[in-house]
Every structure is written in structure tokens, then in C-alpha cells.
């Protein structure tokens, strides 16, 4: 039975056609993936179904009957619930208060607390959730908050759940948990629309998948008939290569050496980190996030003073060099959190492209004047070279998509032929096309004989690109693996189980 059917739905914003005659059929009890690159129109489509936007034309059917949803209230009444990309909970209320907010059973003017708790307990039994109801939302990790958000929707009696990119804010472990939850809800007979631009999740979860591209529906497939290649091509509109053919590159000499580097808190303390990076190689650092990777990078780029040990670059001791000196020596950095460390959102593209190089000729002429002409032509050249899609170099960086912002960072970092590139989570949050583009850039850097230190929580990325992989756990390097090693071995090391003692827990 078809739970939800959409016919010819069109939604325009000015000149932009966000949804162009979309047809969609979602069967009862299925998990239906809605896949598409950023800006494909996924959020707009779900917002139309949920009554947040009024479509310009098109019809929506629920259980075979046409419905007119003009507000989220209508949608909730009809049994449609939505979990938004950005969680919408009240941080200083407890879990149960958030769940019942706006739908409190009352006794007089008082909330009937007993009945509420009974109702939630019943919901827990049906759906298999386990949460401490009295905990304040502000104290909970994002993954748990999201469960609360889902519970809230269920509490309102939703049979059809729409989740808009629910995994974007989660750690890998939380993602696994979420997928398990959704499978459980499906077993309960709920119908789920799961929005994502990540292929892996769609394959792990969905029964069928509908792909949108630039506001148009490209097609719907049962997951059994889909492959990553097919779906990626549908999303991007051309073939996308998942295999990154690594040419043989002659490795050069040792470029960077870490010797017994250790640090103090705040942050995860590093405990005696030692390794070498050679020219022409990509050294991957794998590990569950929060095991000292960020601290290691801060030491490398000069944002954190080590307590002990030494950092050598081209044979020179740079342990105590400033960030500026390191930039001048040719160490480039694509930071993990680009909004915090990589860019200035209110600066324009050209200002961001030159950031950190403004002191160097030809961008500086004379004592203190900026050479705007040189800077702008440099910016325009980078925009062309890196295919950054912007109207011109003067627009604020804030207005760019994540992929284009990241391209600005990478364009700048690679601008002056650095010999070492420290790349942290370089493709996080990017869509398929931008991810492919950036991975190819890293390989191109390697081909040119640069050294790349790739820090990523995405094991597939690390294994696809690296020549060697080190695994970090609780501030230590716990082992080195070849990228071809199987996932199980990586898993053991990432969980802190030593190499030689595989199977024997080496830590608490």
C-alpha cells in the first residue's frame, strides 16, 4: 500500500525552481531514501510535504486520499512527523518535557505528569527506546538529543517520519545507533523517509531510493538494483570515480619528523608521538575522533606548544616556531573545522584567498599597502583554477556552499607550492562531486612530490588515499597498517587493542 504519494509537485523561489514536477511514492512500512547533492531540493520537498512551504502546484495523497497540508499542524494531525536538519529542542527543559511540549495531557491547568510519564513509558516499550527522562537536554550528546527529537515526533502519533539529513551532526557511532533505531521503527510498521547525501547510509538502511538532482527527480530504484556508481551518477549527472588510481610515486626523503611529542591538557594529551613523513607520500592518520588528532595537528601547525619532544621539518627544529614561520617554510593546513580555523566568514572570497599571505610581495607593495590589483587577479585566477562557483571575488565567503568554501581553503593552502599539506577531515560535510574533486587534489599533490598528512575519521577515505596508515588511540600511535589491511584489523586498533596483543584488551 502506498502511504504517501506526491504528484507533480513544483516549488519556486523567485527564479530558482527548487522542486520541478516531483513525483514520489512511498510504500507503507518502507524506509525510503531521498538522495541528492546539496541544493538538490530535498529539504524543500520534505518541507512541502510537512506543510512548512506551500507548493506552487502539485498534489499530495495520503493512503490514497488527496490531502491539503497547509501547516505543520495539518501534517501532524495526518500522522506525518519531521525531524529537522537542525534539532529544535529546548535545552533547559528535561527530556520528557521536550517530548510532550505542545501536547501536554492536562489536569486542569496543570500538566498531568503521571499520565505523561505513563504514556512515554508505553511508547518506550513499543519502540525500544531507553532514556533517562529527567535529564536536561543541554547535558546530552547530540545523538541522544536526536533520539528525543524522534520520540517527540512519535509521541504526536506520527506514522510517517521524515528525517532531513539526520546523520550530518552525528559521530560514526551515533550514526550506527540511529540506523538501528530506524530499523526498529520500521519493524513497528512506521514509514520512514530518510534524506541524505551519503551513499553508504542509504545502502545500509533503505529499501528504495529516490534521487533528486537540481530540483528534478532522476528516478526511484529498489536498493537491490542500485550500486554506488549508479546512484552517484544519478546524483551528480556524470560518472564519478570511487577508485582513486594511485600511480606509483617515487618517495623522496624524510620531510617531517616527530620525536616523542607529548602535550598537556586542555584537550587529549599526546603521549610520545613519533613518526616520519616523506615527500611523495600520503600518510593517513586513522582513529575515532577525539583521540588526539586535533591536538596533533595543532602541534604541527604551531597552535599548541608541546610539553616535550621535537618536531623537525626539512631537518630543521620547528618545535617552537610560530604559525607564520611554518607557513613560510611550506607547511599548509586544511583545518578540520574550517569555520573556526580556516576562513573568515564575513570576509570576501578574495580576502580569504589571500589571508595569511597579505604580508608577502607582490600582495604587499611598499611598507604597508596592499596591492589590491595583484590580490584580485590572484583571487580570480584561483577561482578559475579550482572551479569555485561564485559570481565574483567580492561576495562574502558566508554565502558559499560548504564545498566551495572548502575549495577556497584548499586553493589558498596550495597556492604557493607547500611541501607538506596537513589535511584534516578534508571532505567532511561535502557532497559527492566536491569530495571527489578534493580527493583528486590530494592525489595530485602527492604526484607532485608533496607530502600529505591525511587525518580523517572516514576510514574509507583514509584507505583509498593513503600509502601508509597510522592509527591513533588516546593520544598515542597504536600501530601502523597498510591501507589494504582489512577493516577488522583497523577496527581493533581504533578500539585501542594493540597490534601484537590483538584480541587482548590493552586498555581500560
Amino acid at each position, binding site marked *: 500500500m502506498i502511504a504517501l504519494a506526491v504528484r507533480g509537485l513544483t516549488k519556486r523561489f523567485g527564479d530558482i525552481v527548487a522542486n520541478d514536477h516531483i513525483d514520489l511514492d512511498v510504500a507503507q512500512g518502507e524506509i525510503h531514501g531521498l538522495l541528492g547533492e546539496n541544493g538538490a531540493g530535498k529539504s524543500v520537498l520534505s518541507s512541502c510535504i510537512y506543510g512548512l512551504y506551500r507548493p506552487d502546484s502539485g498534489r499530495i495523497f495520503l493512503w490514497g486520499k488527496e490531502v491539503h497540508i497547509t501547516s505543520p499542524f495539518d501534517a501532524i494531525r495526518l500522522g506525518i512527523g519531521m525531524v529537522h536538519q537542525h534539532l529544535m529542542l529546548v535545552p533547559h527543559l528535561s527530556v520528557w518535557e521536550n517530548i510532550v511540549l505542545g501536547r501536554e495531557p492536562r489536569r486542569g491547568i496543570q500538566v498531568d505528569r503521571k499520565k505523561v510519564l505513563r504514556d512515554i513509558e508505553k511508547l518506550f516499550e513499543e519502540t525500544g527506546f531507553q532514556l533517562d527522562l529527567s535529564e536536561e537536554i543541554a547535558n546530552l550528546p547530540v545523538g541522544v538529543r536526536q533520539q528525543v527529537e524522534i520520540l517527540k515526533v512519535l509521541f504526536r502519533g506520527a506514522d510517517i517520519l521524515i528525517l532531513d539529513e539526520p546523520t550530518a551532526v552525528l559521530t560514526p557511532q551515533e550514526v550506527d545507533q540511529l540506523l538501528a533505531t530506524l530499523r526498529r521503527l520500521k519493524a513497528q510498521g512506521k514509514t520512514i523517509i530518510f534524506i541524505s547525501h551519503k551513499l553508504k547510509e542509504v545502502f545500509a538502511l533503505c529499501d528504495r531510493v529516490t534521487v533528486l538532482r537540481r530540483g528534478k527527480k532522476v528516478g526511484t530504484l529498489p536498493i537491490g538494483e542500485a550500486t554506488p556508481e549508479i546512484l552517484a551518477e544519478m546524483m551528480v549527472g556524470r560518472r564519478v570515480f570511487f577508485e582513486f588510481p594511485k600511480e606509483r610515486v617515487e618517495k623522496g626523503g624524510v620531510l617531517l619528523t616527530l620525536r616523542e611529542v607529548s602535550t598537556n591538557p586542555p584537550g587529549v594529551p599526546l603521549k610520545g608521538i613519533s613518526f616520519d613523513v616523506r615527500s611523495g607520500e600520503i600518510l593517513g592518520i586513522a582513529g575515532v575522533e577525539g583521540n588526539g588528532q586535533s591536538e596533533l595537528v595543532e602541534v604541527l601547525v604551531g597552535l599548541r606548544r608541546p610539553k616535550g619532544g621535537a618536531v623537525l621539518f626539512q631537518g630543521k627544529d620547528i618545535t617552537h616556531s610560530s604559525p607564520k614561520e611554518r*607557513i613560510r617554510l611550506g607547511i599548509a593546513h586544511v583545518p578540520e573545522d574550517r569555520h*573556526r580555523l580556516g576562513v*573568515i566568514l564575513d570576509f570576501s572570497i578574495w580576502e580569504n584567498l589571500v*589571508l595569511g599571505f597579505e604580508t608577502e610581495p607582490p600582495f604587499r607593495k611598499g611598507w*604597508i599597502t*596592499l596591492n589590491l590589483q595583484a590580490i584580485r587577479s590572484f583571487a580570480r585566477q584561483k577561482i578559475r583554477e579550482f572551479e569555485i562557483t561564485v559570481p565574483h571575488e567580492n561576495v562574502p565567503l558566508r554565502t558559499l556552499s560548504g564545498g566551495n568554501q572548502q575549495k577556497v581553503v584548499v586553493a589558498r593552502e596550495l597556492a604557493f607550492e607547500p611541501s607538506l599539506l596537513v589535511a584534516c577531515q578534508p571532505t567532511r560535510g561535502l557532497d559527492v562531486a566536491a569530495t571527489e574533486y578534493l580527493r583528486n587534489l590530494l592525489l595530485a599533490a602527492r604526484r607532485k612530490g608533496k607530502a600529505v598528512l591525511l587525518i580523517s575519521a572516514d576510514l574509507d577515505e583514509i584507505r583509498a588515499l593513503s600509502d601508509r596508515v597510522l592509527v591513533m588511540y588516546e593520544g598515542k600511535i597504536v600501530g601502523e597498517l597498510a591501507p589494504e589491511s582489512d577493516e577488522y584489523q583497523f577496527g581493533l586498533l581504533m578500539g585501542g587493542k594493540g597490534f601484537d596483543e590483538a584480541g587482548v584488551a590493552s586498555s581500560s
Partner: protein
Amino acid sequence: MKRGLRLPLEVFAVGLAFLFGMLVLLVAGYPPLQALFALFRGAFGTRNALGQTLTQATPILFTSLAFLLGFRSGIFNIGVEGQFLVGAFVAALSGIFIRGLSFPVHALLALFLGGLGGAIYALFPALLKVYLGAHEVITTMMLSYVALYLTSYFVNYPLKAPGWVAQTELVASSARLPRILPPTQLSLAFPIAIGFAFLVFWFLERTVPGFSIKAVGMNPEASESRGIPVRKYQVLAFVLSGFIAGIGGGGEILGVHGRFVDGFSPGYGWDGIAVSLVGRLHPLGCIFASVLFGMLRAGGMVMTRVTKVPLDLSLIIQALVILFVAAPFFIRYLGGLLRRRRML
């Protein structure tokens, strides 16, 4: 996006402030149109009026530029008043005690020393902030009062000129900034202030330190990671801010009063904060905003004389302008900052 729309929008907000002000008048039982007319005539109607308006605008143009420069580096220098007073005091002393120099040299030197005084006075809170983490809002505010009472002490006791009034001797005539629109008090300080507005504009938009100061103000962490020495540029911005405030104080003494008179500043430093927000934290915007405020001050006095409308009305309009133009902008600006903080 549509940049052309921005200026009229501000003008609209100012118009709205006037409209509300007149409404207040009407409610209070005064003839609003007549009062408004008197206000404009008193601000621009005659050579005298214009001179008064621009004279009033001069010190607040300096102080608004000073505040702006600190703000752009992420520093909330609300002690502009203190640096302004120190600058005025040092300029007065230089005018009185340095002898044997002839006109342009003596005046410019006194003015420069005034700026230097303001700069040094700003250096303390800058160092306290950068090295000890003392918040500049607290330190600069306290230092403002220190400056106020200290200068007041000097002109009341050791440096008091004979007579009833708490003031110093006159500065040497070679140290005076000449009047440029006699018989009004408008002096060379005004074109110097305008020059400074363009200088600050040039500095922020066309120079390496200006670029770095803006970068540090908008995202200190990214600046640090791109090799921009954050502390150095915060200190620089603070000191330059104090320098401009000090020049402003000096200009007021050497151009208008000719001596340091106790209590000569009705709070020009504080006004500068509001003016710089009304000017959208843009140096050229500050020119318009300070002339607007100068007009309200100068015109307000005439209005009171002619129509018996209390001077408070022009203060009400001032407050309304701040409310309509500066407050929404400021709230949005702070909102942006906070949002950025939360994203970290």
C-alpha cells in the same frame, strides 16, 4: 546584495526618528513643525549655525573613529572619553609650556603629543587585556574616570590659572589651531577630523595592518592559524584608537577653548560610541553620523531659544536615532558574533 538601497534605508530611519520626536512634541503640547524648522535653521540656516554644527561634530567624529578602530579588531574600547581627556590635557600642557616654536610647528606638535598621550593611555588597558586577560570594558571604563578626576585635580589646583574658573592658562598663540569660519569657533580641527576619517578608511581597506586588524576582529582563531599575530594587532588597534581619541581632545583644546577648562567635555567620548554605531562602524559613515549629532546639538540650542521647547527634545531625537539606526544594527552584529561563538 542591493547595496544602493542601504543609504536611503538609514536616511529613512533618521526620518522616522524625527517623526517620532515631533509626535512627542505634539503630545507635549508644542508646535512640532515650528520646532523642527527652528532646529534645522539653528543647525544649517546661517553661517553661524553651520559653524556651530560642524564645531560640535568635530570631537565626536574623532571619538567615533577611535571607537570604530578598536571595535574592528574586536576590542570594545569604551574608554575613549579617558583617552580624549588625556589627549586634551597633554595638548594643553604642550601648548602652554613648550616655547619658542612658531605656528604650524607648535600646533601640530602639541596636537601630536596629545595623540601620543591618548595612545599611551590606551596602551595600559591593551597590555592588561592581552597579557593578563583583564576585560577592556572594565579597565577602560575605570581609566576614564581616573582621567576625568586627575585632569580635574590638576586644573583645580597645581595648574589653575588665577581667577574664578577651574582652567589652565591659555596656550601660546603659536599652538592654536586657526579658526576657519570666523566668527564661529570652527577650527582647523574639523578638516583634520575629516582627513582622519579618510585615513582610517584607507588604513582599514588598503593596508596590511588594517587587513590584519579586521581579520583579528572577525575571527581571531583563524587569524592565528594563518600566522597573523593576534595580540600584536589588538594592541596596535587599541593604541591607534587611543591616538585618534587623543588628537580629538587636543583639537578641542587647541581649536575651540585655547586652554584646558574643567569639565569642557560633555561626554564626547561616550557620544563617539553611539555615533560610530549610527555610522555603521564605517569611517565615512561616521562623518555623516557625527554631523547629524552636531546638528542636533547646535540646532537644539537654537530651537530651545526660539520655541521654548526644552533642550531635552533634541536629546530625545538623538536617542531615537540611536534606537532606530544603531540599535538594530548593533543587535544584529552582536547576534552574528554570538552565533559564530556558538558554532565553535
